[in-house]
């Protein structure tokens, strides 16, 4: 355990100093993307990794958050960082309304419905729904965020903003994993019938997990809107959902370090192979197939849970 703490401290120190050591805005920008996708991955991980719900439309909640923040900040001049909880709540409410009737569906049915929801949201945004979303051009001129009168506009400033939010995200989901709620979700994922038999209200827990993941994706959407200052429906298509999903699955569903590693590999690695940019998705696809055949828990699968006084059983969390 001490070894782990040491590795984490070294990594934290390294990434905290990164913008100082390497003042290359390009690589800082790449890391900003990685942090953002790590946040999105962790939010989806709560739904896919911990609860076992197949959500292939996560971009929808991300989009609702981003658009809520963009619309409110451009129309009413509300500082965008204040809108984090508002955008999260909007995405959460939307998820609640959507997931409430479908949460009981079996794995692949849920997958196809979430794809459908994602597409409906994208089409609605493209068709300028309620005259608010600006059609396929999207919304531009989203104001930069400000913290204590400091306007955040440079990559390194965003680096600390998004990185800071990532740390909060990690802490939040880590605590949630350890909680009664997290244990209940694990039980549901491993054996839903047994969980229900032990008095766990499975439908309620699944719905709550779905909504929490959506709320977090909505907040990530706010950060995205603030970073880009311009958003359009194209950023929230099906492939976005697939990318987030692949980050979770390839990195290691249910494992926080796994998801972060997934974000590094799927978002960061392609930057090193720009010459093969067209073949990027080809490799993703092949990697997903091979990974499922040879290592279906992902690169860094979650460790078995440890309880006080009970020795850890090897492979007990299978």
């Amino acid at each position, binding site marked *: 355990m001490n070894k782990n703490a040491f590795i984490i401290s070294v990594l934290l120190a390294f990434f905290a100093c990164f913008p100082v050591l390497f003042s290359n805005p390009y690589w800082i920008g790449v890391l900003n993307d990685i942090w953002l996708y790590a946040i999105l991955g962790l939010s989806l991980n709560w739904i896919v990794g911990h609860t076992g719900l197949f959500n*292939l439309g996560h971009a929808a909640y991300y989009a609702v958050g981003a658009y809520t923040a963009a619309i409110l900040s451009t129309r009413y001049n509300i500082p965008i960082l204040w809108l984090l909880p508002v955008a999260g709540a909007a995405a959460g409410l939307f998820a609640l309304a959507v997931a409430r009737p479908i949460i009981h*569906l079996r794995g692949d049915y849920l997958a196809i419905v979430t794809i459908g929801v994602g597409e409906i949201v994208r089409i609605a945004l493209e068709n300028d729904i309620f005259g608010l979303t600006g059609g396929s051009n999207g919304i531009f001129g989203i104001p930069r965020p400000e913290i204590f009168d400091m306007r955040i506009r440079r990559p390194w400033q965003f680096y600390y903003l998004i990185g800071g939010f990532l740390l909060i995200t990690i802490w939040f989901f880590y605590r949630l994993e350890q909680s009664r709620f997290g244990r209940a979700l694990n039980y549901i994922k491993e054996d839903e019938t047994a969980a229900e038999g032990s008095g766990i209200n499975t439908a309620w827990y699944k719905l709550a997990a779905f909504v929490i993941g959506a709320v977090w994706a909505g907040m990530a959407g706010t950060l995205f809107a603030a970073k880009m200052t311009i958003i359009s429906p194209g950023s929230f298509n099906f492939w976005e959902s*697939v990318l987030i999903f692949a980050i979770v*699955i390839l990195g290691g569903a249910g494992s926080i370090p796994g998801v972060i590693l997934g974000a590094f590999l799927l978002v960061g690695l392609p930057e090193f192979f720009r010459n093969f940019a067209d073949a990027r998705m080809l490799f993703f696809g092949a990697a997903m*197939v091979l990974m499922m055949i040879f290592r279906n828990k992902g690169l860094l699968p979650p460790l078995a849970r440890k309880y006080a006084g009970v020795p850890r059983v090897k492979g007990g969390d299978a």
Partner: protein
Amino acid sequence: MDFFLQQLFNGLAVGGIYALVALGYTMVYGVMKLMNFAHGELFTMGAFLGLTLLGVFSFTEVLGPFGGIFVLILMVMGMVAIMGVLLERVAYRPLRNSPRLSAIVSALGASIFLQNAIMLMYGARFQVYPHGLLPNTPVSLFGVDIPLLRILLFLVSVFMMAGLYFFVQRTRIGTAIRAAAIDQDAARLMGINVDRVIQIVFIIGPALGAAAGVMVGIYYGQINFTMGWIFGLKAFTAAIIGGIGNIPGAMLGGLLLGVLETMGAAYISTAWKDAIAFGVLILILLVRPRGILGERVADKL
């Protein structure tokens, strides 16, 4: 009324294509309980292979319009069937005994891989099918002029579906497919080679999908590497509407979805056309999750 009839025929023609693609999904789902995401890409592959073959050999000039297209479709069906079998061998068979989550992820991965392979081979731009492969004179039916192509499209898909229905209901192999769909273990105990059945399903499904791909190319005139995704999704929707795992259900669902979507586009809004299809999907799953003709779905013991 004329407008309505025209839209109806239009919807039936598109619905026939959905139905053909939906059959591939529903048969695989019936036997393996797996959503074969990559099926849509096999459909795209059919469209592109058809285009390539047309470039190599001018079928319609040598064999006449109908014979030429017939031979073309048969060749494409054969080639894509081989790909279907390969797909099953590489991406699904190693996962036969894995958790379902793994198989679905593998299917999604295979879909992404194939779609991008097609893009790298043929490019990302729209490709144009040669014009006037089939005569497209308007035919007067019930007092409205319907393009011949539309009628042909509908007839071909109905003919293929009828053939499949006969095959599944009346032949020994068809009986084996139905048995494996009901209970794989029991089928195995009865001496049915389930691996063979799965292989046959992965021949028939992709072959029908490929035929649909060529038909789409001829009908719409242009194809793109992403078309399999949206067609596949709608075809899967059609399969669910009819009741997944149920062969007549997929046919019914496909035709129904085609008509609903065309009517929606005609009377409500074209921009929302795709959203209508998914709206129908969600509605069906809420009201009658097992589909019109299907088995029970809700996740209960």
